[in-house]
C-alpha cells in the first residue's frame, strides 16, 4: 500500500490548473468525501455493498465477478466510474435519494484522476509537516510563500498601508484597543529604521496584550460566569480567566500552556497556577436541574470535554464519532470513547448543586500569602502573650469556686413611675395622654389609657436607652376598668424596632408575627377593678441582657386600663454566669459547644466539666475562656483583647479575599469507560481504556494506564502532526481574519485544504522550533509585508477573492464586540484598566435576565455595578450564558455554551441601534466630545481630534465639510431647545464638565457619536 501514498505536496494555488497533475488531497478527496464517503467510507455500520473508497485497498479490491470499483489508469473498467455516468436510476451513483449529485467538472476530475493512475494520498493533515523550501523573492519567509502564490496568479502584493492605519491595525491586533493620539504621534515622529518593530514590541509588552489574546482562548475554552443550564446560577472560576490573561502576558510557551490546562493537577509538585489552569476542563456547562439523571450528565460532561480537546488542539470533529464511526475521518467510535476515557473519571459531580463553588475547588493564594498569614499569627500571638502576662489575667478567680456566695445580687430598675423616662417623646393614640390621681398603685399618679379600638401611649426616641439586666423579669401593675374592660392589654418594647411584645387577653391587635417574641401571649386578662402585678421573663419577648431599650408602649384594645410602676428585676449571680465563671461556662457548653470553638477544645467542652482533664488541657481551655468569653476581666486585658480581635478580623478579610476557583481532578478510583452504543448514556458496549486515535502517531504513557498528562504531552509532542498546525492557523486567523485553513476548527477530510500548505507547515515547524513562543509568532506575523498591506482593492479584485484567501491585500474586518465597546470607552477617556477579579456588571437594559430566568436563580436580577464597574474592559463583564449581555449577543460573541473557534461577523440593524443609542456608547461619545472641546479650540481641530482618537488619522477636507455641516445643524437645533441639549449630555452616570456650554457639548457629542459609527471606526482596517 505504501507505494500509493506519496507525501503531500500541493501547489499553493487554490484550484487545479489544467496543465498541472492532479492532487488527490486537493482535487479528489473533497469530492469523494462529500459525495461518496457517507456510504463508502470509514463508518463500517453505514457502509454499503462492503465498498470503501477512502483507501486504495478498498477501492482497488476485486469484488464480485472480478470487478473493481477503481482500476488505476482505466476508467472504462472501473465500476465506480461506470456507475457515475450511468443513466439508469437504479444504477447511478450517488443514488438520487441521497440528494447528492456530481457536477460535470467533478466527474471530469474523477475521470482524469483514474486515468492518471488513481494515486491516493493519506489525508494531508495526518502526515507530519515537512519543512519546505523557502521560495525566492522579497520580504520575510512568510512573505515569500505568499508572494510565490500571487505570482502564479499574476497578482502582486498591495503597497504598504499608511502609518496611521498600521499603528491602529497593530494596536487592535495585539491589544484590542486603538492607539492613543500620543502613541500615533510618537510613531509618526520616529523616522529611524526599525520604528515599526519598536512599535510592535511596545504593544506586545503591554498588559493589554494578554487581555486581547485571552478573549479568543476563552471562546475556545467556553468560559462563563454561570453554570449555563437551568437555574444558570453564578459559578466562581474567574481565577482561571485571569490565569489565561497572565499566561499570555508572561508568554508562557504554548506546549506548557496546553499541559497545565489539560493536566496541571497531575504534574508532580504542581504549582498553584498549574492547578488553576485545569479550570479549562471545568468550563463546560453543567446542570443542577431537579430530576436530572446523574449518569446522563456524567456522560455528557465527558463527551463535551473530549470533543473540546479534540477540536481545540487537533482540529478534529471527534464528536461526530459519539454515535457511530466518523463518516469522513478515520476516527472510529472506539477512538472517540478512548479519548473520552481520559476525562470520564472526573471528580466533579453530575449535579452542580447550583452552587457558586462546586467541588473540586481550590483557594487561589496570592504571592506571599503564607508569609502574610504567619505574620498575622505572630502579631496575634504577641498580643495574646501580653494578655496572659497581665496582672488581671493572673488574678482571675472563678466565682463558682469561691466560698463566699454573697456576690449574688438582685436588682430592680423602675422604668415608669408617675412619668416616662426623661426626654422621652411620648405619642398617644385614642384619647390624649392622661396621668391621673385615681386609682394609683404607687407614687402620685398612674397612666390612664383607653379609646376606640386600639389605643396606646408610647415613645421610641428622646430618652437615654434603658439597659436589660441579667436574667430579666419585667413587671407592671394594671387596673382594668370594670365598666370598660379592654379585650387585650399589651406592653411593647422598642430596640432597633418595635419587635418585642407581651400580651394579656384576646390577642386581637395585629402587631408582630404570631408565635414569636414579637407577639408573645403571656396569659389571660387579670381580674378587673383592682391592681394586679403582671410579670414576663425577658427571654419570652426576645430581650436579652445588655440590650438597649430605646422605647416602650402601653397598649390596650377595646377598653380602658390604668398602668403603674413598670420595671424590670435582674439577678446577677457570677457563679452561674458563663461570662463570669469558667466552670459555669463549661457547664453551659456541655453536650453542644458553641460553633467556632476550635478542636480539640470543642471536644473537651462537649465532654463537660465532670470528665477529668490534664493540667495542660485545663490551661488551654481556660486560656481560651479568658481570652474570648470572660467578661469580668478588666485592666490591660480589655485593649489587648480588642487588638487580638482586630488582628483576627484582618486575617479573615485577607484570607477570604483569596478566591476559590473550579479545578479539575480525577476520582481516586477511575471509572471504567465503555463505547456507548448509539451515543446513549445508558447503553454501554465494549470496554475502553484511555488512548489516542489510532490514525495518529502513538502516545507514550508513563504508567500502566494512560492519563491526561500523557495525553497533554502527546498533543504537543514533535510527532503530533496536528497541534502546531491547528494552533498557528488560529493565530493567523486572529490577525488576518481567516485561517490558512479556512475551516480552522476542522482539519479533517471535510475541512478546507490550506490556501498555502507550505506556509502552514513552515509556521508549524518554526513554532515548535522556537519552543512554542506565542509572542514570537505573533510578532513574526505582524512584521510581515503581507500583514502591512493596504486593505483596499478594486472591485474586480474583491469579487475575485472576497475572502482574501490569496492575501493580495491587507486584512480588513469588523471589530469584535469587546473591541467595539473598549474602543468607545478608551477614546472617551472612561476606560478603567484595572485587571482581574469577579465579573462586573456594566450598563445593561432592563429585562434581559428577568424575563427568562428561573424564579429561584441567583442570576435572575441584574444588579448593575457602579463607578469603575461600568467602565472596565469587556473581558471582565459578567458572562451569564443563558442570557448574555446584548453587546455580546448583538456582535456575535458566542454564548460560551460550547467551544467556539471562529466567530461569525454579522452586520445587522440591531448593531447599528446599539452603537448609536446604548448609554454605554453615547456616554462615551459625549466624553470624547468633551475631550475634543478641551483639547482644541478651533472647529476643524476638534474634528481632527475626534477622527484621530477613533481612526488614528485626521479628517480630510471633504470629511470636515460633511462633519461641520452636521455640527452646524445640531448647534442650531439645540440652540432652539437647550433643554434637549442638557438631556443629551446628562445621559450616563459620569457627569459632564459643568464649565462647558451644554449646546456646544451636546453637538460635539453627536459628532463623536457619528464618527464612532463610521464604517472605518467599526472595522480594523
Amino acid at each position, binding site marked *: 500500500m505504501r507505494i500509493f501514498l506519496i507525501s503531500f505536496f500541493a501547489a499553493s494555488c487554490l484550484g487545479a490548473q489544467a496543465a498541472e497533475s492532479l492532487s488527490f488531497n486537493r482535487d479528489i478527496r473533497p469530492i469523494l468525501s462529500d459525495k461518496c464517503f457517507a456510504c463508502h467510507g470509514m463508518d463500517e455500520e453505514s457502509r454499503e455493498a462492503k465498498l470503501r473508497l477512502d483507501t486504495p485497498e478498498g477501492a482497488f479490491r476485486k469484488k464480485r465477478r472480478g470487478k473493481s470499483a477503481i482500476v488505476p489508469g482505466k476508467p472504462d473498467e472501473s465500476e465506480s466510474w461506470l456507475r457515475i455516468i450511468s443513466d439508469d436510476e437504479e444504477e447511478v451513483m450517488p443514488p438520487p435519494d441521497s440528494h447528492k449529485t456530481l457536477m460535470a467538472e467533478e466527474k471530469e476530475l474523477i475521470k482524469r484522476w483514474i486515468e492518471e493512475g488513481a494515486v491516493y494520498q493519506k489525508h494531508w493533515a495526518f502526515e507530519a509537516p515537512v519543512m519546505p523550501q523557502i521560495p525566492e523573492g522579497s520580504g520575510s519567509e512568510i512573505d515569500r510563500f505568499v508572494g510565490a502564490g500571487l505570482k502564479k496568479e499574476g497578482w502582486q502584493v498591495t503597497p504598504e498601508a499608511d502609518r496611521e492605519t498600521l499603528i491602529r491595525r497593530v494596536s487592535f491586533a495585539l491589544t484590542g484597543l486603538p492607539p492613543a493620539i500620543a502613541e500615533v504621534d510618537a510613531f509618526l515622529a520616529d523616522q529611524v529604521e526599525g520604528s515599526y518593530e519598536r512599535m510592535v514590541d511596545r504593544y506586545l509588552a503591554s498588559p493589554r496584550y494578554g487581555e486581547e489574546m485571552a478573549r479568543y482562548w476563552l471562546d475556545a475554552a467556553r468560559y462563563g460566569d454561570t453554570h449555563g443550564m437551568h437555574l444558570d446560577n453564578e459559578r466562581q472560576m474567574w481565577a482561571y480567566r485571569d490565569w489565561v490573561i497572565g499566561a499570555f502576558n508572561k508568554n508562557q510557551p504554548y506546549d506548557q500552556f496546553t499541559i497545565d490546562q489539560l493536566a496541571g493537577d497531575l504534574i508532580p509538585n504542581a504549582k498553584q497556577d498549574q492547578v488553576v489552569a485545569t479550570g479549562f476542563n471545568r468550563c463546560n456547562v453543567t446542570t443542577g436541574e431537579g430530576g436530572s439523571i446523574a449518569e446522563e450528565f456524567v456522560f455528557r460532561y465527558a463527551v463535551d470535554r473530549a470533543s473540546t480537546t479534540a477540536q481545540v488542539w487537533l482540529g478534529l470533529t471527534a464528536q*461526530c464519532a459519539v454515535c457511530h464511526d466518523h463518516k469522513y475521518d478515520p476516527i472510529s467510535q472506539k477512538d472517540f470513547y478512548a479519548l473520552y476515557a481520559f476525562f470520564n473519571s472526573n471528580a466533579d459531580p453530575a449535579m452542580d448543586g447550583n452552587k457558586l463553588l462546586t467541588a473540586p475547588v481550590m483557594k487561589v493564594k496570592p504571592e506571599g500569602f503564607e508569609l502574610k498569614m504567619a505574620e498575622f499569627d505572630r502579631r496575634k500571638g504577641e498580643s495574646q502573650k501580653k494578655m496572659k502576662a497581665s496582672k488581671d489575667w493572673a488574678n482571675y478567680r472563678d466565682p463558682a469556686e469561691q466560698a463566699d456566695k454573697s456576690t449574688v445580687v438582685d436588682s430592680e430598675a423602675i422604668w415608669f413611675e408617675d412619668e416616662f423616662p426623661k426626654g422621652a417623646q411620648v405619642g398617644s393614640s385614642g384619647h390624649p395622654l392622661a396621668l391621673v390621681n385615681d386609682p394609683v398603685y404607687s407614687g402620685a399618679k398612674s397612666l390612664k389609657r383607653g379609646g376606640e379600638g386600639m389605643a396606646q401611649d408610647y415613645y421610641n426616641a428622646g430618652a437615654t436607652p434603658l439597659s436589660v439586666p441579667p436574667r430579666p423579669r419585667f413587671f407592671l401593675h394594671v387596673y382594668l376598668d370594670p365598666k370598660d374592660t379592654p379585650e387585650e392589654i399589651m406592653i411593647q418594647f422598642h430596640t432597633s424596632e418595635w419587635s418585642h411584645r407581651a400580651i394579656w387577653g384576646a390577642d386581637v391587635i395585629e402587631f408582630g408575627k404570631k408565635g414569636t417574641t414579637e407577639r408573645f401571649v403571656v396569659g389571660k386578662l387579670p381580674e378587673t377593678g383592682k391592681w394586679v402585678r403582671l410579670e414576663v421573663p425577658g427571654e419570652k419577648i426576645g430581650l436579652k441582657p445588655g440590650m438597649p431599650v430605646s422605647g416602650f408602649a402601653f397598649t390596650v384594645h377595646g377598653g380602658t386600663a390604668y398602668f403603674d410602676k413598670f420595671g424590670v428585676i435582674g439577678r446577677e449571680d457570677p457563679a452561674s454566669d458563663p461570662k463570669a465563671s469558667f466552670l459555669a461556662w463549661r457547664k453551659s457548653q456541655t453536650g453542644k459547644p458553641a460553633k467556632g470553638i476550635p478542636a480539640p477544645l470543642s471536644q473537651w467542652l462537649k465532654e463537660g466539666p465532670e470528665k477529668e482533664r490534664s493540667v495542660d488541657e485545663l490551661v488551654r481551655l481556660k486560656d481560651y475562656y479568658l481570652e474570648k468569653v470572660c467578661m469580668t476581666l478588666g485592666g490591660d486585658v480589655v485593649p489587648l483583647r480588642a487588638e487580638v480581635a482586630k488582628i483576627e478580623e484582618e486575617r479573615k478579610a485577607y484570607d477570604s479575599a483569596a478566591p476559590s476557583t473550579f479545578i479539575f481532578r480525577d476520582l481516586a478510583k477511575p471509572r471504567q469507560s465503555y463505547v456507548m452504543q448509539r451515543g446513549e448514556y445508558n447503553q454501554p458496549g465494549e470496554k475502553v481504556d484511555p488512548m489516542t486515535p489510532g490514525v495518529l502517531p502513538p502516545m507514550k504513557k508513563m504508567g500502566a494506564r494512560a492519563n491526561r498528562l500523557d495525553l497533554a504531552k502527546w498533543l504537543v509532542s514533535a510527532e503530533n502532526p496536528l497541534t502546531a498546525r491547528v494552533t498557528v492557523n488560529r493565530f493567523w486567523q486572529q490577525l488576518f481574519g481567516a485561517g490558512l485553513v479556512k475551516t480552522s476548527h476542522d482539519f479533517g477530510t471535510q475541512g478546507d485544504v490550506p490556501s498555502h500548505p507550505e506556509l502552514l507547515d513552515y509556521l508549524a515547524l518554526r513554532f515548535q522550533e522556537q519552543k512554542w513562543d506565542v509572542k514570537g509568532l505573533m510578532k513574526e506575523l505582524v512584521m510581515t509585508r503581507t500583514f502591512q498591506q493596504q486593505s483596499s482593492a478594486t472591485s474586480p479584485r474583491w469579487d475575485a477573492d472576497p475572502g482574501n484567501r490569496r492575501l493580495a491585500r491587507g486584512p480588513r474586518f469588523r471589530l469584535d464586540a469587546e473591541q467595539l465597546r473598549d474602543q468607545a470607552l478608551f477614546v472617551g477617556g472612561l476606560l478603567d484598566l484595572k485587571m482581574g477579579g469577579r465579573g462586573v456588571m456594566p450598563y445593561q437594559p432592563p429585562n434581559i435576565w428577568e424575563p427568562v430566568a428561573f424564579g429561584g436563580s441567583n442570576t435572575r436580577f441584574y444588579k448593575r455595578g457602579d463607578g469603575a464597574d461600568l467602565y472596565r474592559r469587556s473581558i471582565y463583564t459578567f458572562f451569564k450564558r443563558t442570557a448574555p449581555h446584548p453587546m455580546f449577543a448583538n456582535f456575535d460573541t458566542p454564548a460560551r455554551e460550547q467551544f467556539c473557534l471562529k466567530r461569525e461577523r454579522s452586520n445587522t440593524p440591531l448593531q447599528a441601534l446599539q452603537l448609536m443609542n446604548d448609554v454605554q456608547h453615547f456616554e462615551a461619545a459625549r466624553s470624547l466630545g468633551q475631550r475634543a472641546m478641551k483639547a482644541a479650540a478651533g472647529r476643524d481641530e476638534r474634528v481632527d481630534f475626534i477622527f484621530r482618537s477613533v481612526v488614528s488619522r485626521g479628517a480630510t477636507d471633504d470629511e470636515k465639510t460633511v462633519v461641520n455641516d452636521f455640527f452646524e445643524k445640531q448647534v442650531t437645533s439645540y440652540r432652539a431647545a437647550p433643554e434637549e441639549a442638557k438631556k443629551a449630555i446628562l445621559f450616563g452616570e459620569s457627569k459632564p464638565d459643568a464649565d462647558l456650554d451644554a449646546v456646544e457639548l451636546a453637538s460635539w457629542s453627536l459628532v463623536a457619536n457619528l464618527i464612532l459609527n463610521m464604517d472605518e471606526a467599526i472595522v480594523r482596517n
Partner: protein
Amino acid sequence: MNPFFENQLLQTRRQFFGDTGVRLGGAALASMLTMPGLAQGGSSVNPGMPGLPHFAGKAKAVIYLHMNGGPSQLDTWDYKPGLVDQFDKELPKEFLGDRITTMTSGQGRFPVAPSKFKFSQHGECGRWVSELLPHTAGIVDDIAVVKAVHTNAINHDPACTFVMTGSEVSGKPSMGSWISYGLGAETEDLPAFVALTPNFPNGSNAQALFSRMWGPGFLPGRNSGVVLRSGTDPVLYLENPPGVSRTDRRSMLDALGKLNQRGFEKFGDPDTQTRISQYEMAFRMQASVPDLTDLSQEKPATLDLYGDRVKTPGSFASSALLARRLVERGVRMVQIMHRGWDSHGNLPGEMGNQCLDTDQACAGLIKDLKLRGMLDETLVIWGGEFGRTVYCQGKLTRERYGRDHHPKNFCMWMAGGGIKGGTTIGETDDFSYNPVKDKVHVNEINATALHCLGIDHERFTLRHQGLDERLTGVEPMNVIKKILA
C-alpha cells in the same frame, strides 16, 4: 451546504449589496424587492438562500406558541375516560419503564391521577376537548392534533433545547433561525425572526427560558430571533438617547452615509455598503416598531377575539395579536414562549390559570388569521417541550394532584398553511403513557413545519464542524403526511 457554494453565495450577496447600495442609497432599497435572482420572498435586508424554497410551500410564515414547562396532555387533549376507575391505583409496571426523573423515581408508588376536568365533543370532527379550553374547542375544525409526540429529553433545559433546536445539546441554531436563514423575510423594516416572552399567571411554576431557544447557533448572527419586549423599548436600543430627536438622527445618518460612501470609494469593501443599508434599516425600525406595537389601531371586534387580556401589555393575548401584526408585515417566524406550565403539585389550579391566560387568545389568533385570509399562508404550532405523567406526583385527591415530566407522549397541534384542519394523528395507551399508534418525534413536527414552508428538511443542511447539520438531526425523520392539506 458545501463550502464552494457558500462562497459563491457570499459573493452574490456582496455584489448585490455593493451594486444596489451604490446606486440607490439606503432610502430607495424598497424598489429592490422585485429584483430577480433573490430567493422567493426574501427582501434585500432579509435575504433567503438561493434555491429555497425547494418547492412551493403553502405557508409563508410560522407562529409558534410554545407552552413552556410541559402542559399536561391528560387534562387537555388526550381524553382517557377509563381512568376515573383507576383513581389512586398503581400504574402497572409494564407501562412504567425505567426512565423516570429523580423527582418521582424515589416515590415508591405511582398512583393514577385521572383528570378532574370534563371533556366534551366539539366541531364537525367531533374532537374531545377538556373544559379548560372552551375557546380552542371552538376552532377544532381548523387544527390538526398530533397526539403522540415524543422527545428524547426528560428535563426542562435539554427538552426546551430539543424542541426548539432539534438537539438536546446546546449550540445548535433554533428553528426560527434556520427558517430565517433559509427563507429570509418579506420585510425590510423588521427582522425575519421575532421572539416574544409574555408574562404568565402568578403562582404558576415557571421554568427558565434560554436565549439558545431563539439563538442562531452556528448560523450567521443576523438570523437570531429578535426579542420584542413589552414597554418603551420593544427592540433593544431602539430609542434615541434623551435629547436626540428623530430629525437629529436623520441628519446624523445623512452625514454618516456620506462619510461611509467615501470610505467605500477608498477601500472598496462591499461590507461597507451592507453597513449603510443596515443603518438605514435601523432608522426605519425606529418608526416601524412603535407602529407595529401600537395595538390601538386595531378594531374593537378584533380585540374582542383575543379577549380582555389583550389590553394588558406583555400579556400572552397581546403577544398573540402582535404575532399576527408581525406576520402581516412580512416577518417569517414569530415564537411566543408562555411560561408556567410545569405543574408538579397543584396541577388543576395552575392549569386553570394557564389556560385562562392563553385559551381565548390562541383561538382568537386562528379566527383573526382566518378572517383576514391569512390562515392559509400562516402555520401555527402549539405545544410544550414534553407532557406529563398519568401518575401523581405528591399528594393525590380527586380534586388536587401533580404530574411529573413525561417525554414519551404528549399533544401538540398545528393549524393553517399546509395543514388539514379537523384531523388527528396518533393514539396512546389507556394511561396516556406510551404511544400505541403513529408516534411522532418532535423533529418530525419540525420537519413538517419546514415542509409546509416548502423546504425539504433533509436537503436543508449546513456544513458545520464536519457535519451536514440540519434542524431535524441525524436520525431519519418523516414529514407527518396524514395531517397535510
